[in-house]
């Protein structure tokens, strides 16, 4: 009996999408530029969505307010990087990275703190009540947006890239934006750290088990609620980090930035399979690549491409790319 064969088909789909785009795009240099842009976008979306999928998987909590952590992270970054203007404007890559990482750490701390309060005040009273969760978490996001307007104002705020991260690496005809390379590196580091935690630590084991059957985890003697709060805070902090990355990707932030990304991240976690980190990763990359390829090939279609992708994936696998057993 052969047990444990890894399901490669979603990854083959990912590679297939890239290969399919090559003849359609035509020029390999353009294809490479679009592919790197798609991977960068996908990895930013993964950073944002990874916490949300675990939150749903662990406690069946539908947090439509996840966007507020994204927006808060992005706005904190405008303040931190604004306050480190000399580092941001410096031609030194080291100082630039220092400013970005300081902004990311501050954004994660603030978003994580707000996540803790959000779980305690807004989510906890509505455990197990999906309709109320949707309403109250959406309400929480509206309140969060208004708080952002009070603090930073209602207008769009620029979040320019630091000096050394502007422009592109040029290889022959191919131009790859420097910031996208940084986004890919950070996204892969987060993915690696998440995989390591989930697969190599007891806490990760508990999270993976809790996503499948939280009652059994409790019957084994572990307090799943405590674990859930930890995951919620971590997920909020990651959303804050993703907010900084998304803001720098767009080079501007608005109070609605979270609501705008919310739709995308829900598509990603549904495509990936609710509760699945690997599914979330593959789903995010698919969404990022699809958005960039269709944006180049057929801009009018691009608006609907991710919805179309979700429909196609769900027709193929109604439970998502990597469904979680027992769910």
């Amino acid at each position: 009996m052969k047990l444990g064969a890894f399901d490669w088909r979603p990854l083959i789909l990912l590679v297939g999408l890239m290969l399919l785009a090559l003849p359609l795009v035509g020029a390999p240099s353009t294809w490479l530029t679009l592919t790197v842009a798609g991977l960068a976008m996908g990895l930013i979306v993964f950073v944002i969505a990874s916490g949300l999928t675990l939150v749903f998987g662990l406690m069946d909590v539908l947090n439509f307010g996840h966007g507020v952590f994204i927006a808060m992270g992005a706005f904190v970054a405008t303040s931190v990087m604004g306050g480190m203007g000399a580092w941001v404007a410096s031609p030194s890559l080291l100082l630039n990275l220092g400013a970005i990482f300081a902004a990311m750490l501050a954004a994660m701390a603030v978003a994580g703190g707000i996540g803790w309060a959000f779980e305690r005040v807004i989510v906890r009273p509505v455990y197990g009540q999906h309709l109320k969760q949707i309403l109250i978490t959406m309400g929480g996001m509206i309140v969060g947006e208004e708080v952002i307007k009070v603090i930073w104002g209602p207008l769009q705020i620029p979040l320019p890239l630091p000096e050394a991260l502007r422009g592109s690496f040029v290889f022959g005809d191919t131009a790859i934006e420097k910031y996208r390379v940084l986004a890919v590196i950070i996204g892969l580091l987060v993915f690696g750290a998440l995989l390591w935690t989930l697969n190599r630590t007891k806490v990760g084991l508990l999270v993976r088990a809790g996503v499948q059957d939280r009652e059994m985890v409790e019957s084994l003697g572990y307090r799943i609620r405590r674990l859930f709060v930890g995951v919620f805070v971590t997920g909020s902090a990651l959303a804050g980090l993703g907010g900084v990355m998304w803001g720098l990707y767009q080079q501007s932030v608005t109070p609605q930035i979270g609501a705008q990304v919310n739709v995308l991240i829900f598509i990603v976690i549904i495509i990936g399979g609710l509760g699945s980190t690997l599914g979330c990763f593959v789903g995010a990359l698919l969404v990022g690549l699809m958005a960039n390829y269709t944006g180049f090939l057929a801009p009018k279609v691009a608006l609907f491409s991710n919805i179309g992708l979700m429909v196609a994936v769900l027709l193929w696998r109604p439970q998502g790319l990597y469904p979680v057993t027992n769910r």
Partner: protein
Amino acid sequence: MNVLELEAVQTHIGAYHILHGVDLAVPEGEVTMLLGRNGAGKTTTLRTIMGLWAASAGRVSFKGQPIQGRPTPEIAQAGIAYVPESMGIFGDLTVQENIVLAARNARRASELDSARLDWIFGLFPALKKFWLAPAGKLSGGQKQMLAVARAIVEPRALLLIDEPSKGLAPSIINNLVSCFRELKKQQTTILLVEQNFMMAKALGDSVAVMDNGRVVHSGRMAELAADEGLQQRLLGLSLGAHQ
């Protein structure tokens, strides 16, 4: 001495009144069989003991301490292991990960008690064979073995096991019976819900029979096994069909 005692325990699930005052005692070092027809309240009794459903009245005491109203993790930490009817296997985790999770004192496989693990592998060789395979890919019988192995990977004062023979082939049931006999030899206290009377007869020291949310008979298993009239009255057993 009784490890576990239930006194007049009542349980409501939503609008339904399931347990109507259960009295039950589980003596230390014995296998107590909990028998009864479908819907008699056996599973609800186990879930109430574990705190998965709250008792609405009555008292549940474990080692003399009341445990009703306490959260499930605390009850488990007090020394009760639970094997649900659904087995509760984490299908996306490997067999090894399922075992590590059940061992609260081990953070990783290398920290498992190797002598105890060898003993478990002796009881269930299939678990060793599929140690690194996803548990979801195991057969029904192998999953049941894993569920029991999780309950005994560390010493527990009481095992609650819900219908382990359900849906399993006779050869697998024999394997489980051998395992429970081995546990009996070690004076492990077990409360075992079972519909298979042959298995109950082979394993039980004491017995409680439930009907309509109450314990309607309790005593020694040998007495019930010897009294066909009592079996017929309590369990509706037609010996030709069940034995």
